[in-house]
């Protein structure tokens, strides 16, 4: 049984559960861009992002009957797409728990930082840093949520984010200075 506050989403979910093709397309249309962008940002290339999107949405429609509505539908779909993307990325990632240095948390982001520069810098990060930075800073997940999703400890998530930011600043400095 699905409990959703949004009546439109509830109708959409119920129609999808009846294998209504139009409702399934409508649900896909509603979330496709955000999920594709997320998958691209995590995976770093469009082909893999497309695959993750397909796998994610197939999984969404197959397990829609298990959706209990404890979170929003968008958050639930996003989690599935992240897991689909992480499944592809997993062979390339080896998370290591690194101790944080004393001055952790102090970053300096330039006033002239543009989105394009940041995007390029994110794509230049290693897969592990890119994944955690995207999930925490871009998608707004908390460290314990990321830890649960990726099967790591919250400490590892924090350290990965710290080094990801450090690496980003180095990348941005390199991009801006020359």
């Amino acid at each position, binding site marked *: 049984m699905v409990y959703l506050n949004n009546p439109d989403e509830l109708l959409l979910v119920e129609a999808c559960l009846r*294998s209504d*093709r139009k409702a*399934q*397309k409508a649900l*896909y249309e509603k979330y*496709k*861009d*955000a999920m*594709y*962008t997320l998958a*691209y*940002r995590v995976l770093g290339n*469009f082909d893999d*992002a*497309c695959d993750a*999107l*397909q796998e994610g*949405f*197939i999984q969404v*429609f*197959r397990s829609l009957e298990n959706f209990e509505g404890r979170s929003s539908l968008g958050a639930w779909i996003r989690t599935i797409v992240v897991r689909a993307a992480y499944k592809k990325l997993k062979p390339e990632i080896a998370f290591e728990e690194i101790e944080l240095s004393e001055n952790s948390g*102090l*970053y*300096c*982001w*330039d*006033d002239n*930082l*543009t*989105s*394009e*520069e*940041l*995007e390029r810098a994110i794509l230049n990060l290693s897969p592990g840093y890119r994944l955690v930075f995207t999930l925490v*800073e*871009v998608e707004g997940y908390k460290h314990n949520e990321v830890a649960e999703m990726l099967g790591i400890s919250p400490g590892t998530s924090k350290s990965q984010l710290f080094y990801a930011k450090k690496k980003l600043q180095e990348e941005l400095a390199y991009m801006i200075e020359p």
Partner: protein
Amino acid sequence: MENEKNNISKLKNRLPQHIAPESVWESVEEQFQLEEQSTGNLKQAIAGLPVYLPPEKAWEAIDLSLNKKRGLVFSAHLIIRIAAVLILALAIGFLIRDKIADEKSNKLALVEKPTQFNLNDRLEMPPSNVDIKSEKPEASKNQAVTKNKQISQKKEMLNERDAIEKIELVTISSININKLEDYKKKDQTQLSENLLKSEPKVERKTKINRVKLIVHNDPPPPVVDKRRFTFALFRPVSYSQPTKDTLNRNTKPLFAASINL
């Protein structure tokens, strides 16, 4: 010990208190502001990150996969419906078959068994206590007229019975029919020869081709269902005035046989 403690507390109170310089707070505040601004810059940059549109083929692949599922669901529903219809058709078929079987058994029940009374009835025999020779000629004439009417009515009845028997014979397998026909032919020839020899004076109005076949539906045994076919051959029906001799002779069938199938 107590004196020492009191002295220390007195000394503590006498220690000078220093006022923190304003510059410290300024630097901390500056640091916070810098950090906030930096985070703001990052958030602003993140908010402006581009959104990408997936290609159309992504939905096609998803739809194809979902179609397979839909197809499977549809096939499952179709199979269930076909099975339900088949079961229903079978049930109706069994019901119809039982009904036909009941009707057949009812028809067979209508066909009377060749009892003594029936045989007399068939051969239009007068009651056994009536003295044939003592009847008056006029009365006999009236009786003959009424008898003729009765005979014609009973002929019709017999024809109907024969028709029913023929219907029943159709259901018997071809092998059994062939066997029955062989018996029939054999007995007919023997009978006709015997009759010609034994009673040349009797006027024969009917042919000697009447084979009465009666199918008995015996109650089925507990394990094996057997059907027994009994058939009997009677003397030809003569509508002339019967004599005592013919009366005695015609009450018994010339030939009777039964086959267990």
